[in-house]
């Protein structure tokens, strides 16, 4: 069971959330928004690879052999 990817995403999420709070408190709303967006995009890049692997595996399982 490969769960490192999940904990990577969770860790990035927590870091982004904390930095978001800091930046909001410092009155830098726009940078906080940018930070959130950057986090979402980075995680999306990881996710696309995971999902493509899942779909390839599902197709392999349900193929007529």
């Amino acid at each position: 069971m490969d769960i490192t990817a999940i904990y990577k995403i969770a860790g990035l999420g927590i870091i982004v959330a904390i930095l978001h709070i800091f930046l909001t408190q410092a009155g830098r709303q726009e940078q906080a928004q940018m930070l959130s967006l950057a986090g979402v995009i980075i995680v999306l890049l990881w996710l696309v690879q995971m999902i493509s692997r899942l779909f390839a595996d599902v197709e392999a399982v349900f193929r007529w052999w």
Partner: protein
Amino acid sequence: MQEMTRIVAMAIVMAVLLTYLRSASQGALASQLAIAFMVTLLLVLLPPLQQVMRLFVDLGRRAQIRSVYMAVVLKAVGTAYIAALGAQLAKDAKEETTAAVVEMAGKVLIMLLAVPLVAGIMEALVGLMP
């Protein structure tokens, strides 16, 4: 049994992390984390599913069902699996419209898969008629 314990433990950790991320107004990241969790779990569950599928294919072969029909059933199950996954993920991100569209696409594609079967039934019926 051991697998199940690990899965439940991971689910509890995920629930706590997701609650934290949602409360810290990082809804998009929370959704992405949920997707990652789901994808990982499905990757874990695929090998057992493959064993079950192999059993069904073997049964079909022994019952001498035509391989075309077995292939249709397998493809329908696979399509339903992926459609349910996508629809559930979209629902989780509170995107009801996307979920409905994904479910609709799954239904249409499964119906498309069933077309040869319906044609076969019709042919058999026509053959039965005097």
